[in-house]
């Protein structure tokens, strides 16, 4: 437990210092959101309607971008080998790392969402709905991404492959996240139905992700 706490604090500390790049995700998110009106046109009614989808896509891409660093930095400085050799269960260790990663990359995205929603002319209900679905969905993005990171960490230039592998698995999250946000805005479904499914997907990924990633890390060793 103490070791996990130390690992957690270490990852948080690395993320906020130079080279961690936690804030770069938010910057990227901002860039994606800002690009959309250029592509679609400055029609505020249209932007309002597709706003939740834009925010979800932006958050999805931003968290994909950050996934590359989830394990590779540890591989480079050798601390991944220490994790593999230590007595701490690897499943718990990678879950801790993913949790720290979510706090430093996922949570800033959620916090930034209300601000970015202003650009897209979303009203208060819509903004709250999108922020809530992102809060429920981004942990799943990180924990599913953890599987991909475990699979590709030992590969040279595994980053793009990581995105390709993780994106199909993230599609259900995108569907139910956007469905829940839209349900809160226009209906006809109640918000609760897709939101509950989204939460269920997140819970499944919290269980599945660390086990699959730990297995991948063990099998990936020579």
């Amino acid at each position, binding site marked *: 437990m103490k070791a996990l706490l130390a690992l957690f604090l270490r990852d948080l500390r690395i993320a906020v210092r130079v080279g961690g790049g936690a804030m770069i995700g938010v910057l990227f998110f901002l860039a994606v959101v800002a690009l959309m009106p250029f592509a679609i046109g400055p029609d505020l009614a249209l932007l309002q309607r597709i706003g939740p989808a834009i925010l979800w896509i932006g958050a999805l891409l931003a968290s994909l971008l950050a996934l590359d660093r989830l394990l590779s930095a540890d591989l480079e400085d050798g601390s991944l080998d220490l994790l593999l050799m230590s007595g701490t269960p690897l499943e718990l260790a990678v879950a801790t790392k993913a949790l720290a990663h979510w706090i430093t990359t996922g949570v800033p995205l959620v916090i930034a969402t209300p601000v970015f929603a202003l650009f897209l002319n979303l009203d208060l209900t819509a903004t709250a709905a999108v922020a809530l679905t992102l809060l429920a969905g981004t942990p799943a993005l990180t924990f599913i991404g953890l*599987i991909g990171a*475990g*699979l*590709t960490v030992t*590969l040279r230039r*595994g980053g793009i*492959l990581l995105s*390709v*592998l993780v*994106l*199909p*698995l993230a*599609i*259900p999250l995108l569907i139910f996240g956007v469905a829940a946000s839209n349900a809160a805005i226009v209906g006809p479904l109640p918000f609760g139905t897709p939101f509950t499914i989204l939460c269920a997907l997140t819970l499944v990924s919290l269980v*599945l992700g660390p086990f*699959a990633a730990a*297995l*991948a890390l063990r*099998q*990936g060793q*020579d």
Partner: protein
Amino acid sequence: MGLIDLANPSRFLTFTDRALPWLAGVTAIMFGIGIYFGSLAPDDYQQGATVKIMFLHVPSAWLAMFGWTVMSISALGTLVWRHPLADVAAKAAAPIGAAFTLLCLISGSLWGRPMWGTYWVWDARLTSVFVLFLMYLGVIALWRTIEEPTRAGRVVAILTLVGAINIPIIKYSVEFWNTLHQPASVMRLDGPTIHSSILIPLLIMALAFTLLFITLHLAAMRNEILRRRVRTMQLMQAQAAPGH
């Protein structure tokens, strides 16, 4: 000869040597019968002759899911039982499964144009099969990225098992989301809802396609074993080369 003897790659090679011509022959005969009966099948009163795309489309869809199932069972074989041929089977199945998925998407889209008035809709069934295609490509990419075959096998096996979640989603997508694609009509608890004049050629074609899959799969496994032998020999040769 039991299944356990086939775990030995050399015995497997001898077995496929003998079995492959027979399998290929039976496959060709089944295709002949299937195409003959398929051409005899009456046109549908609504869909006309286009209903015959079904004889290509439905078996490919079935094999698209079958391919991933084969890979998932092989993945279990790799990770749990450490079966020496399991990762060979998984690697050989991936491109074949991807090809049938693509065939299913293309034939479905050609069928959809006259029936639904569009080549593509973002319907639940279509989308989930499309995602399956993407996952096949991802798995193939991962196979190609890791050089050492046994290590690649173990890593890909994990991805395959995670991706296996998609298979029941595809199977039941037409029941979960009631969208444009028609619900299942062959595999039903209360019996098929297709008339026997179409059902029988469809089943023969499904059998023929499955035999084709097995034939191609065994041949691809054979090639993969030989490829690995060549690789091992090259490595040994490189090690034995003077100057090392």
